[in-house]
């Protein structure tokens, strides 16, 4: 990644390439699956792209390597500085929400890197989503002294891919560049992370259904549990993926705005599909069990996708949880009860 060093009054600054190599690309794929995710970072500090001078632009980024890679890749053919903040390896938006991509870290990093001696202007270009953590007017105030002007934060585009059009457009982001999107491709990219994160919940459901499946007319037996729980586990997996995979992918096409309700609907569809396909035991109790369990699981998992989305508000999520968590719990309890009754019959 580092190809050389640029001489400046404060010493040598590492120069990075703008072409991503196969290791960078493989790393990006791996972190989508959370492999090595906690350690995918670059060292905070100042970096050079091309052969920047005292007049070159300063772009601010997070020390999540994926964020840094996006920025350097999109600066190909340009001379610029990249100031990397210590966000503990977290991307800009999430770090801004936590405050690590924040006013104080930026001010501290400006001082630590002695940026003033490297450039002779006071302009920093920040990704717009950093605004949740960085207050532009505070940065200016805090970096101002009697003899020095404060640094001006210029809000750049949301996506690093828009950096070049942004520069051409006289440092102005267009409305499109400023609006966060959530396309099908973007939603799909999130799914691996969600699936890996939520794996624990799935395991919990497996254990529960396995233990419960041991009940029968003759009492309780672990051997029975193995046999009866197998198809049940399959249904649970299907409901789980309906909530965590299918619902997010189809998100805007499923009616209603609440995620939990969207998941409930897809869960009901899953039940209908399984029932029509005659994949389920036809006893009334089994039907009652699954008509409750499948939508409950799907609804719960879909609700958890709110965190991955780019447009849910805290007040809204609180509201939908207030309505749907009790519904999900009730359905799960009744579903389990019918499941056991069916086994004891």
């Amino acid at each position, binding site marked *: 990644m580092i190809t050389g060093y640029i001489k400046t009054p404060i010493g040598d600054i590492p120069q990075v390439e703008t072409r991503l190599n196969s290791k960078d690309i493989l790393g990006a794929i791996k*972190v*989508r699956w959370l492999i090595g995710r906690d350690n995918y970072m670059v060292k905070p500090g100042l970096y050079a792209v091309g052969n920047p001078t005292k007049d070159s632009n300063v772009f601010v980024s997070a020390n999540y390597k*994926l*964020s840094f890679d*996006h*920025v350097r890749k999109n600066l190909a053919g340009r001379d610029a500085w990249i100031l990397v903040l210590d966000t503990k390896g977290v*991307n*800009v938006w*999430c770090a*801004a*929400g936590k405050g690590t991509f924040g006013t104080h870290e930026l001010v501290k990093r400006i001082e630590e890197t002695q940026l003033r001696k490297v450039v002779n202007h006071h302009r920093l270009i920040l*990704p*717009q*989503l950093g*605004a*949740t*953590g*960085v*207050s*532009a*007017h505070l940065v200016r105030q805090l970096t101002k002294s009697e003899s020095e002007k404060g640094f001006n934060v210029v*809000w750049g585009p*949301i*996506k*690093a891919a828009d950096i070049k059009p942004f520069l051409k457009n006289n440092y102005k*982001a267009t*409305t499109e560049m*400023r*609006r*966060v*999107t*959530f396309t099908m491709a*973007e939603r799909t*990219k*999130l799914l691996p*992370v*969600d699936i890996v*994160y939520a794996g624990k919940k799935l395991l919990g459901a497996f254990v529960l259904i396995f233990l419960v499946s041991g009940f029968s007319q003759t009492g309780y037996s672990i051997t029975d549990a193995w046999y009866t729980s197998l198809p049940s586990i399959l249904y649970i997996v299907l409901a789980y993926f309906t909530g965590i995979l299918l619902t997010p992918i189809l998100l*805007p096409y499923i009616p209603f*705005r*609440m*995620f*939990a309700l969207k998941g409930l609907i897809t869960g009901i569809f899953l039940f209908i599909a399984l029932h029509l396909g005659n994949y389920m035991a036809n006893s009334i109790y089994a039907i009652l069990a699954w008509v409750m369990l499948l939508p409950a699981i799907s609804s719960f998992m879909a*609700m*958890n996708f*709110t*965190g*991955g*989305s*780019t*447009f*849910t*508000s*805290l*007040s*809204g*999520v*609180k*509201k939908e*949880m207030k309505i749907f968590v009790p519904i999900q719990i009730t359905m799960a309890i009744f579903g389990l009860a019918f499941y056991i009754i069916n086994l004891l019959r």
Partner: protein
Amino acid sequence: MIDFKYLGETVSLILNKEKCNGCGMCVKVCPHAVFEMNGSKAELTLKDYCMECGACQLNCAQNAIKVTVGNGCGCATGIIEGYFGVESECCSDSTCC
């Protein structure tokens, strides 16, 4: 563009027009185009699209904006983990750079 509006009616965003000096910063930082400038004042044109990220509040030098629900992400996992006293990782890797 597909309409990604969330619940709308719960949004706790307040704009105090009297304090606004028309600097336009809120328009620049909002990721959901909630604000628009109307002459020398900001206006909430797409309030229902607000996700309560707080960027506008933090960047309004006039203190004219408030998101009353407080800081936190709109994330059910985070809220549930919060009940159990776990500090949440919350948001996953969105498209941001």
